[in-house]
């Protein structure tokens, strides 16, 4: 336990002013201090990727970043993907291709995929497989996640 530091996280375009201990992870701050529980925590040691969010356009494991390191930076979470009722192409593709079962790892995969596809819209299949191997899913066997991300990549290129 130690003194708290005042920080502001910009989550999905809205400022969230909070005071956190220096040791507080970004994942805990997003979920508990700012109330966005769509970001999930699966291992807290940077392996499973369930907590992946986008920080300044890069996918980040939010359990491996301290909240204070994200002070003033732009954070995107699963709650910010859709525009009103209009789903993001990656969300639509996960539904269309059955890319999720229990849904626990899903927000992490969505944010990982969006972060990568925005950076590399023409990513080849081999590199995409490398990227998607960053996160763990225990339900789908990855078949339909890969299909969904490829479909979303195509859709995002055509937009």
């Amino acid at each position, binding site marked *: *336990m130690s003194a708290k530091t005042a920080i502001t996280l910009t989550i999905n375009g809205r400022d969230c002013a909070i005071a956190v*201990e220096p*040791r*507080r992870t970004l994942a805990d701050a997003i*979920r*508990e201090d700012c109330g*966005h*529980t*769509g*970001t*999930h*925590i*699966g*291992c*807290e*040691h940077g*392996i*499973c990727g*369930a907590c992946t969010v986008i920080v300044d356009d890069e996918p980040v494991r939010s359990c491996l970043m301290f909240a204070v390191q994200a002070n003033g930076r732009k954070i995107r*979470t*699963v*709650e910010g*993907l*859709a525009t009103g009722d209009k*789903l993001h192409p990656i*969300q639509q593709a*996960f*539904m*269309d291709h*059955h890319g*999720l*079962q*229990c*849904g*626990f*790892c*899903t*927000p992490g995969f*969505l944010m990982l995929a969006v972060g990568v596809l925005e950076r590399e819209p023409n990513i080849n299949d081999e590199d995409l*497989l*490398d990227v*998607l*191997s*960053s*996160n*763990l*899913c*225990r*339900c*789908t*066997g*990855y*078949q*339909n*996640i*890969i299909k969904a991300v490829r479909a979303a990549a195509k859709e995002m290129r055509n937009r």
Partner: protein
Amino acid sequence: MSAHGTRGSGMTWVGRAIRRLEDPALITGQGRFTADLPAAHWVRFVRSPVAAGKILSTIGPAGTMMITAADLDGVKRITPILHKFSYKPVGQPPLAEGVVRFTGELVAAVVATTAADAEDIAERVELSIDETVAVSDARAALKSGAPQVHPEAPGNVILEGKVKTPDFDGVWGTADKIITVNARSRRQNATPIEPRGAHASYDAATGRITLTCTTQMPHLTRTAISDVLGFPESELRVIAPDVGGGFGQKMSLASEYVVLVWLARKLKSSVGWIEDRRENLIAGFHSRDQYITLEGAFDKSAKLLALKTDIVSNIGAYSCFPTTCGVEPLMAMAEMPGPYDVQQYQCLARGVITNTCTMAPYRGVSRPVITFTIERLMDKAAAAFGIDPVDIRRRNLIDRFPYKSAMGLEYDEATYKETLEMAVKAIDVPAFRKRQKDGRAQGRHLGIGFATFSERTGYGSPAFAARGMEITPGWETVIVTVDPSGFVEARIGSSPHGQGLRTTLAQIIADELGITPDMIKVVHGDTDRAPYGWGTFASRSLVISGGATLIAARKVRAKLLKIASHLLETAPDDIVLADGMAKVAGTDRTIPIAKLAREAYTQTHRFGGEIEPGLTETGHYDPPGTFSNACHVAIVAVDVETGHVKVEKFLVAEDAGRIINPMIADGQVHGGIAQGIGNALLEEIVYDENGGILTATLADYLPPTAHEIPDIELHHIETPSTNSITRAKGLGEGGTIGAPAAVINAINDALSPFGVQIDEIPATPQRIRAALRGAEKLA
């Protein structure tokens, strides 16, 4: 979702790959998981750092709240019971009482206002344990002089199953060849991505506790906790919200949940606990730690005559609730012959207690291990007889139905041979053999492996009763209500957590009632809202809850027709329900189904006392069980320099009866195979010689990533089951059951020029290199 495709228009919802009704919330971050709930207090458990010892003292930091077993006065031990197989009941106190029996066992709980503070306090607890000698290996535990884990189970044997068919000895003596496999399955952890967790809150107005937890069986969790804590069930509500995968690990009662409910009652407040990954890996239940010796007696034509097996199952330190630790050894005993026709059988199956984490069901339970064992036997026998692995299976697979196994199980119609032939044709074996030969000439070692298996699914209470279970699960109840607005709610006792049951059950109801699935809400996972039921496990929910749904929906349909018959003044037989309307066949006279529903509540006076008010019907279903089947084929490349295995291709020909939603069915198979490939190659919980765990992170315990899973090619046959009223068979576990056998057989095929045999899962690079080094020494 369109209104097209209902019964009357010649198409059914059943059989269609509609998108899941579960998904919109889950893909937008609106899922509701246990960890999402705020709590006034948070718990951190103090766990035993050693595998065995006497607790001398547990001292918490001054001014903090800590409880130990001494505080849980009057709380009973968790004591599951079997009435057969010389079972020795051993009780598990929710917090250790004087003795610890495995690394990670709960010793104390500390409480603080944040999870981080609780963790800080737990680190300052002074726990003094007089460490004693531990035993973690089941064979070592069986030796005389081994440490005794529980005084109630002398020799560490907690149960023993024995069978021998009457003509066994005579037939065994006629064998042309006896083939032996010494199989070893290492310990594994189901590893759902959501760790376990619980949240117990106290309602001051009623004194009730609501326990929200990551369970696959909310109703039995409620029964068990009220038993252990000694208060009426009506004072406890259990909610299974969105649950992030279970695979069996979340069906057993967690001691942690008992402590949470006790604390919420004590504090009259809300209390949360979320397991971290280390806790999950060391103490979140383990599985599959077995030694199996299997001998097969074959006649001259390679026909299997008799099987003899010795099963040693490491059940850990306690017996899991409710299935008991019989779940692995007794399933292995009952189902070892698998898809093969063999009428003579001898088996000794023992459950052995050790100083390790308690064993509990994990997807497939014993069948990934026994399938791997008998499929190794078949490949070894094929080699001994000089015939092809496919040929020996052709000669031995069951092909007449119903078939009664040596253990008395009745197999309904399946397609063991047909799926094998389908797979053989699709994989093009001759082309592979050529590629294998060419590869070997260049130092590239490819192998092909087959696995054929039966998957007993959807079995009701008689199957569980055969094990002598004090608590005998099996049936399911579904209550279907059409409300006055014409929308439908189906309340079910099962508790899906990723299987898509909200969608598939809605498809079943939609066909019966002539409406669209999006008008139907399936409610589950809340003991206040759903009828008593057993939950989701054992590839049962679509068959049993689906059957109960169909029964209830048919009753609702009959009542709708009766009401329509009154209003349309036509015989019920002349009315069809389709496209949201009741129609008089052959006329244009219609009435909306929503109007029928409204009248069922608001115009009952019109029915002359012949129709009871309301539109709610209940279905119960308790089926005998049905067998799904499949043939899996793996093609692997083994790097003989490093021992690394790459699965290049995986092909499945499967038959799970009538398929309700092909998209969801394929997803279940994909996921099962990925777990099976992980089980075959990567996943292993490792204990050191003192019972300490060496694999406590996901960098040590390795679920497969997308890189390790090849493209999976699926082929289907649908043989409708006569033992299931929806004609569907279960398919949740099949992927995991067949994949380890196919992968290990493929590795052995690849390494056949080296004269090595790999009969162990996982086949890690170290094990493959050790086998190759051993062969080099011999050469």
